[in-house]
């Protein structure tokens, strides 16, 4: 129950990202000298 509750909280939080233009950016790995 606790785990299901926590997992649902994760998914709810991530569901809030639906309206964002996520396809506009790529999650490039970062470099120690700055943003790639």
């Amino acid at each position, binding site marked *: 129950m*606790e*785990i299901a509750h*926590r*997992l649902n909280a*994760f*998914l*709810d*939080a*991530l569901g*809030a*990202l639906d309206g*964002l*233009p*996520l*396809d*506009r*950016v*790529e*999650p*490039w790995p*970062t*470099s*120690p*000298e*700055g*943003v790639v």
Partner: protein
Amino acid sequence: MSIGNTDELAFASASRQAALMREKRLSSVELVTAYLERIERLDGRLRAFITVCGESALVDAKRAESEAAKGQWRGPLHGIPFAVKDQLDTAGILTTSGSALLRSHVPTEDSTVMARLIQAGGILIGKLNLTEFALGGTLRFPYGQPRNPWNDEHDPGGSSSGSGIAAAAALCSITLGEDTGGSVRSPASYCGAVGLRPTWGRVSRHGCFPAAWSMDQVGPLTRTVEDAALVLGLIAGYDERDPTTSRSAVPDYRAALNAGVKQLRIGVLTELVDGADTHPEVRGAVREAARALAGLGAHVEDISLPLIPHAGGVFMALCDSEAAGRHQSWLTTRPGEYDAGTRRRLVAAGLIPATAVHRAARARALIREQILAALGRLDLLLAPTSPHPAPPSRATLRPSRARKRRGGDSSVVAPTPRPRASPVCPRSRFRADSPRSGCPSDSSSSADPSRNPPCSAPLGRGRRQPPSLTGDPHFRRRRRDRSARPIVRDR
């Protein structure tokens, strides 16, 4: 020695202690002995330490004293006792990461940051308590419940709990913590210390047990901003054993403290300062800090970053899934040795769909883009570390209430792996003329590294007052006596 008694000596900054040693007015043995006495007297209650290295510290202090007598100085920390979070490897000394799983783990090599402090002449006095594997949410601490030195029924913050406690209660000269999503800044805020999360890549993580590799960063917790700048200067810099470290030159952060704040452009982050969850006392403290900065010549303006409210969820998805991957083997073979809170957190994170994690990584890129755009025209972002003052400790909460407790705002910066931002928890709330508390932090652009802790000079030099909690009778009592230091009950 100009410092009158052992309490004065213990609470003095490391920079001051080092100066006294150079003037031959203080010996390392005297200093180490004073801290060991305080640890013996106070730590039974505070539980800042997991391991105290009393015997070896005294041996090292005698050696330091002998070298000093001959004019041989190893570095700026010669003879100064420090302690590190038990997440950092120390050769030949138990290193548990706050977990029962590692109760017998003795590394054979020092972490890079540990080695650099030793090279600068520092003396390891002990290893500091933390939430299990630096993840937060620990229900039962295997090495004792850490307690806030200002009120031991309240949370000291985490995950670098012992580092915040030891700095604030003067159990050593300086400490190191590690910050993934607020683990340096939260205990600094709750305990009334200075906490600095360096820019990602600025400090080596070699020998640091990972919480989440894409966000982990080692940083100092100290009693003064000058000490934080001193320590950062010593631990920063390229390390061939950590490929994520930057090759950029390490500036003189201490010298930069004298630059002042005139012409500095500061943005007050409205989503966090004026958010519905922000305690009025915290909001007031941040606004007061902003006014103080403006009064000193900085240009201060409100700024809105609409993606910030997403940062907490994005951070949790990325941090927890990275941690779940790291712990998968032990979760399968040794699940019973985890704290129940840690185990639940990791098991739940292991069930997050990969597509959701990937979307969180994209959202992190968007948030980073927005923060960097703001820092293109501003030098600092000012915001609270936590939306509320230190809450009651989990040890004093019923389990159901403890589980519902929410985290702070420190994770806002953590999801930006290279945010060029260095949040600081200056001790502005300890200004003598302010009855308020709160937890202001600031994120500074490090495009010009010499400006890394720019607002710390005016904010960090006040007389200390205890943090207050509106409505909390224990804290109100402490506030009335206007004590300048935590009043810690002997065990």
